[in-house]
């Protein structure tokens, strides 16, 4: 059994990351959902191709889950520090300015910069 502090972390992780992500993605199945993700899912689902649907929803769900982890850090629910390769310790909640989740999701953010996997950019049209 982990120590109580780790259990506390586990509880936050499950509630605010795992469960939040599942709830968020469940809402996208609502026929009235208006986000670009929901619209994309509906469009692909209407074509009836299961493989295409999975290829569409998997990165969206993964991104949403990572988003909720970063959001938990941004909100201060989880205070994490990162030890960089140069040995510097960075308090992600404090020095991240509450912008980590935005950096991850944004059009020219971390996903676009570092990911080698497929990515749906839902924001490029905003700044065209």
């Amino acid at each position, binding site marked *: 059994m982990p120590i109580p502090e780790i259990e506390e972390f586990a509880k936050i992780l499950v509630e605010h990351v795992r469960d*939040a992500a599942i*709830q*968020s993605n469940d*809402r*996208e199945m*609502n026929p*009235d*959902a*208006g*986000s*670009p*993700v*929901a619209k994309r899912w509906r469009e692909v689902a209407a074509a009836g191709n299961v493989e295409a649907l999975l290829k569409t929803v998997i990165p969206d769900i993964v*991104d*949403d889950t990572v*988003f*909720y982890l970063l*959001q938990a850090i941004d*909100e201060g*629910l989880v205070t994490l520090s990162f030890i960089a390769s140069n040995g510097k310790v960075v308090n992600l909640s404090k020095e991240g*300015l*509450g*912008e980590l*989740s*935005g*950096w*991850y*999701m*944004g*059009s*020219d*953010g971390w996903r676009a910069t570092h990911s080698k996997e497929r990515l749906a950019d*839902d*924001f*490029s049209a*905003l*700044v065209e």
Partner: protein
Amino acid sequence: MKRDRFTAILLAVAVVMVSGAAHASISTPALRPSAPVPSEPISSLAVPSESHVADPGEVDVFVAVMPLGMTDDGEYLDLVMVVEPETHTREWYIVQSPLGLFTKEGMYEKFADMYGVEGLGLLAWAMSRGYQVEKKCYKSYDWAVEENIIGIKAKTRIFFERSDKNAAKQLMQALQDIYEREYVLPKIAQNFGGESGEVGAGYWYYHTGRIVGFARVSEAILGGGAEGGDWSGWQRVKVGTIGAVQTGLWVVPAAKGITALGAKAGLGTLGSKVLSKQAIAILQKDILFKTQLKGLLSKYGGSLISRSANLEPYGGPGGGHHVPAQSAFAGAPGYDAGAALAVPRAELARLGVRHGIVSGAQQTLYRAFAKSGETLTWEAMQSIETQALIQGGMKAGVARATVRQAINALQRAGVHGPTRIPWGG
């Protein structure tokens, strides 16, 4: 001709009721011994089968009116006696009350005329909560709210005031009462329960007796602060002022040309706060409003204010999405990230907003703005934050109202403006 005769009677009744005289001189076509319309003879009163009146032209009549009451069908009836003075011929009629008895249709039409789209919005809001309007026969008061029935007194016998216009006024009073009980007071209660303490108390303290269980209200006014300490007179004035301003924000008018609280008479502006597509949809289903509402909506166009999303301090249990982005105010005097308003997680879910998309849109838009080299202003933030919420799935009107409310709260807290561009590097 029958109609003219009946009209003459009604005019006479009206004159009597208004003037208090028992005698009226009216110009009328000949009163002929025929059955008035609508009327029913009353056998028990020995209604004369034959009666006659003078020649056409100027005719003097005496009129007496007695209320008979309301039928099972809700129809109000009067007993009307008309006396021809020279011959003393009497005629008795039972008529549908001629004394300005309002109709629901007429009342709604007048209500729309008097209170416009804001009033209709308030009415729609009440309807959306299950209220119905009914004519009632009250003795002691003009209107009453009974369960989900808004009862409007059907008529009075004294001052001829049961017109559609009067009924519309009573309806508005009833709606104001409902609005205060079901929206304003709970909102005040929320304020009292928050960390910000007793904001609002100064303005609303006289409602203390109506807010059950809020002893802190009187404490706030009489000297006990949120933390139990004594408040100075200046503090109480400040709290009162904030409360008044806050109240003003709740009732900020929506229609074009109405720019300040009180610019429209009475509390007709209250409805602006509660206008929503749902409410409008309900109104549109009501046949009584179809034509008028269409015209009003066209007249006021896009100026309708949607209801803001529910905003709570970010530091509360709801967390959620900061509006605007907190990093814009790093080091700003007066800015408290915990006290700043946010759309709680539950509210985002209720509104079907995908939080990740909102944050991504914020980052994208602020990054683009930073590249423009322009200075970030409140106006620019309003635009960016609104776009971000819409991108996440929030309805445009709600998004605009939400961001506006959040920025207003920051300004009231003394924040002069952003200190940096979020995600601006």
